[in-house]
């Protein structure tokens, strides 16, 4: 049996070729953004979960004899305090590790709350239409016209700084984008046949929103939530840095930076390590978010 010449000369596309296990692993590595994932695991997730186990010291134990010890590689540094200590003798490394827990907790809570409320309002606005839609979207417009950092500062001034305030304030800053995005998506889904059929079959509005529209906007919500985590970490650390977020001696990255700012000339390690923790975490989160967006929801590209 002879094979036609043309068929022989055309190489098979790589994706169709038989691949061994190794090939599959390599494929996955290429498709998954491995470096950002590793950075995130090392800087954020693992420290957040295992902070109590891996932190070498208590992050809030004052130790006045070890104040302002430099990092281990500088003269006067010791292996006990790898990244040095601050003014109160707190171990910087331990505080960064515990700070990851704070950052992650605030991000998850604030995005859960803001994203949840925004999604519900977006669904409601799209499905109900009419005055409900008008009212919700006007509020969204006003929220988006207000410079966020100022709104946050006013709210913190009113509620007083602290963990709950920060979560609430950030949630308040976030919901509008979710509402607007979900509404836009839901509007086009609402017009499709299966929604009309569900209505004819007697499904309640709540059921239609929750079981028929929501699953179709879920990807969008997940992508937006991921993209917002970096934003939330920036907001939280900025508020703490300004003295309008978390309060001392909570091991929050922004607070550590604020504390180190005044000693930037004599003890650079105080501001430098927490700053890098923030920058690298947000960078990795943004890369991951971009990747997720391209995979799940390319429509969001210009958001």
């Amino acid at each position: 049996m002879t094979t036609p010449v043309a068929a022989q000369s055309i190489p098979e596309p790589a994706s169709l070729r038989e691949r061994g296990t190794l090939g599959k692993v390599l494929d996955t590595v290429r498709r998954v953004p491995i470096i950002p994932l590793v950075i995130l695991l090392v800087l954020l997730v693992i420290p957040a979960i295992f902070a109590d186990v891996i932190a070498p010291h208590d992050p809030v134990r004052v130790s006045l004899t070890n104040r302002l010890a430099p990092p281990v590689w500088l003269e006067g540094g010791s292996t006990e305090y790898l990244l040095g200590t601050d003014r109160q003798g707190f171990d910087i490394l331990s505080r960064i590790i515990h700070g990851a827990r704070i950052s992650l907790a605030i991000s998850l809570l604030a995005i859960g709350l803001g994203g949840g409320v925004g999604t519900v309002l977006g669904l409601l606005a799209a499905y109900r239409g009419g005055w409900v839609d008008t009212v919700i979207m006007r509020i969204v417009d006003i929220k988006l016209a207000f410079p966020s950092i100022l709104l946050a500062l006013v709210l913190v001034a009113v509620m007083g700084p602290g963990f709950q305030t920060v979560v609430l304030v950030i949630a308040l800053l976030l919901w509008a984008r979710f509402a607007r995005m979900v509404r836009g998506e839901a509007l086009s889904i609402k017009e499709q046949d299966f929604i009309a059929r569900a209505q004819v079959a007697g499904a309640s509005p709540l059921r239609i929103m929750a079981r028929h529209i929501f699953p179709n906007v879920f990807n969008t919500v997940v992508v937006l939530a991921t993209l917002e985590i970096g934003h939330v970490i920036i907001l939280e650390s900025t508020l703490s840095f300004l003295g309008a977020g978390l309060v001392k001696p909570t091991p929050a990255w922004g607070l550590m930076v604020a504390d180190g700012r005044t000693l930037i000339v004599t003890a650079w390690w105080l501001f430098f390590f927490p700053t890098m923790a923030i920058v690298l975490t947000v960078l990795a989160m943004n890369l991951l978010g971009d990747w997720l967006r391209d995979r799940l929801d390319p429509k969001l590209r210009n958001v």
Partner: protein
Amino acid sequence: MQRYIFLRIIQAILALLVISAIVFALARVTGDPVAILLPEDASPKVVEQVRAKWGLDQPIYVQYARYIGNFVQGDFGQAWAYGGVPISELIIRRLPNTIYLASFAWVVSAAIALPIGVLVAVKKDSPFDWAGKVVALLGQSAPSFAIGLLLMWVFAVILGWLPTSGNDAGFKSVLLPGMALGYYNVAAVMRLTRSSMLEVLDTEYVKLARIKGMPERKVIWKHCFRNALIVPFTYMGLIGAVLLTGSVVIETVFVWPGLGDLAIDAIRNRDFPVIQSVVILFATFYIFINLFVDVAYAYLNPRIRYN
């Protein structure tokens, strides 16, 4: 067009009224301002006098109306802290510093971002392009205080070229805060210029200009750049608003005596008249710059005149 402008102005004023009402109400829900102003054991008579003096004995909507009336005339009331000086005095003293810083940052970001945006578009997929992407990504990922502190550390502490903070070293002292404030926008404007340039580079008239044998430099600057400018230019307008509010953070980092610094100070002292005035003033700038940009954009690009 006139209708569009008119509607946008009405919209802006409404937004401003709502925002100022929210801020005003928020400042009141924290409790009786008199409790903050006076010691706990103040006699009821003194409390009454203070109430009357600050107009706090009136219903809240009267207080609000009076406040807005005065605000429009440039009378922002008196600060609780700072020995009760008129807030307008505090603002007039600090506003020029903030405007100076913000305009410097604006010029810096335009001067850096536009040419680099063009360069990375022309040299697409070259090392320049990649470097540009890294700069843009960093701009998205680093909070402005981080950029500010890193710049301060390198140029003021390690190299010792520039002062670490304050504004008493003339032009030298605005360089670091200005760059830190402008950085985020450099990234954004650069990206916009790049994509907008790429679009124009792909058009028929640019191809024609090249076929005619026009020198490449002329093609890029005369034919492409001018047409690609609309989008980044509108954005540069919006940035004016972003820079003003962004100065809150940068002024704190560099101890720059501007409005943002005043706002943070007031928040630490819970000085609500000052917080209220500064925030409403910032919101006014923000909304009116946005309004101006929208109108300018509608003028430049007739396709978006909806409504």
